[in-house]
């Protein structure tokens, strides 16, 4: 069998089982509302959403690698492109693009053209500090950590806050050298 190359996000999305995006959207909305009721502070909700995303990210990376045939990315640029072109498409069915690279190639923006999480959503005045989609940044952070990249992910633009697009800044903090979980002489 010839070695299979990386698959396109579209091809994977077409081949996996899918569910109605509205069930997903409304369920996410229910989660955010529960958090707002339980935690009261918008800041705490942001934190909890990020944590949930992180939990998802560290599990989701396995499925991502198994289904995409993506092998090790040569640099952070390729990593970011893969997240945007394959990752977002494969799980959420949406297209994202990478832009605003800094000079040394360790910081870029992922711009979402479409975001199924925010359908039917309008932020009330009491929730102005809320990063409604903070779960997404957590997912990216968690998934990258599993491939030995420590990254910082922050929202730059958010349509719910009146911007014209969703923009996530992904900043590579460091590449963690791989360590075996055991020592040779043990």
């Amino acid at each position, binding site marked *: 069998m010839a070695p299979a190359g990386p698959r396109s996000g579209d091809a994977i999305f077409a081949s996996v*089982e899918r569910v109605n995006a509205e069930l*997903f959207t*409304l369920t996410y909305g229910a989660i955010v509302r529960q958090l707002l009721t339980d935690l009261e502070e918008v800041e705490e909700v942001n934190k909890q959403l990020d944590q949930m995303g992180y939990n998802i990210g560290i599990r989701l990376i396995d499925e991502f690698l198994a289904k995409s045939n993506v092998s090790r990315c040569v640099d952070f640029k390729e990593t970011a492109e893969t997240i945007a072109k394959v990752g977002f498409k494969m799980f959420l069915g949406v297209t994202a693009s990478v*832009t605003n690279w800094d000079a040394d190639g360790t910081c870029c923006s992922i711009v979402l053209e479409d975001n199924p999480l925010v359908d039917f959503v309008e932020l009330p005045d009491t929730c102005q500090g809320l990063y409604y989609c903070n779960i997404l940044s957590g997912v990216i952070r968690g998934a990258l950590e599993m491939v030995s990249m420590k990254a910082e992910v922050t929202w730059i633009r958010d349509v719910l806050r009146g911007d014209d697009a969703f923009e996530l800044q992904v900043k590579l903090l460091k590449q963690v050298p791989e360590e075996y979980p055991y020592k040779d002489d043990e």
Partner: protein
Amino acid sequence: MIGVGKIKQYSNVLDKPLSKGKQEVSLSAFAFLFSELVQYNQTQVDNIAELERRLEDAGYAVGARVLELLCHRIRLKMEEIVHEHLYALAAYLSTPLLFGNAILGNRRETRLLGILSFVHSTVWKVLFGKVADSLEKGTEHEDEYMISEKELLVNRFISIPKDMGTFNCGAFVAGIVRGVLDSAGFPAVVTAHFVPIEGQQRPRTTILIKFAEEVLRREARLG
């Protein structure tokens, strides 16, 4: 091709045209999200009953919105059809079952069986991509109905640890059903149960609907 400009902005969410509801996400994306919902709620409770109640609350919020969404969408669809087939209107009106007995125009369903079949077919189809396996009337009590599903979407990737006894993630779906029914004016107590099937390893999930007294009284009055 820098991804800008595709998202059109609306000053108000209500100005935004209603989507056709055909968009999809991967099942895993939903499963991951749902699992976080369950795990988070686990950290907030002391016992199984409370956990189920919290999942039901989350589902209720979804159900109430689903009803509203579907009512609007069906009305839009109706208008479209009326425009397209004005000449066939008369013929059309004589087939009011076109939407699976659902809600016609701005009208919501007022009869018990109508709303039940709306949940069992229309709501299920939209949320889970299929009509529910069965809709039955309870044999022992007049006010009980059951919707059963061999493999409920939310239970698919969940295995219940032994120490959690009868816990059923279907509580979330029970909540959705209660949300739809309540918002449509049919208050009910809705619970999810596992029912073993002979020769099958996994039990099916039954959503038990027990209507409030007032609902049955009204139904009797309507004759």
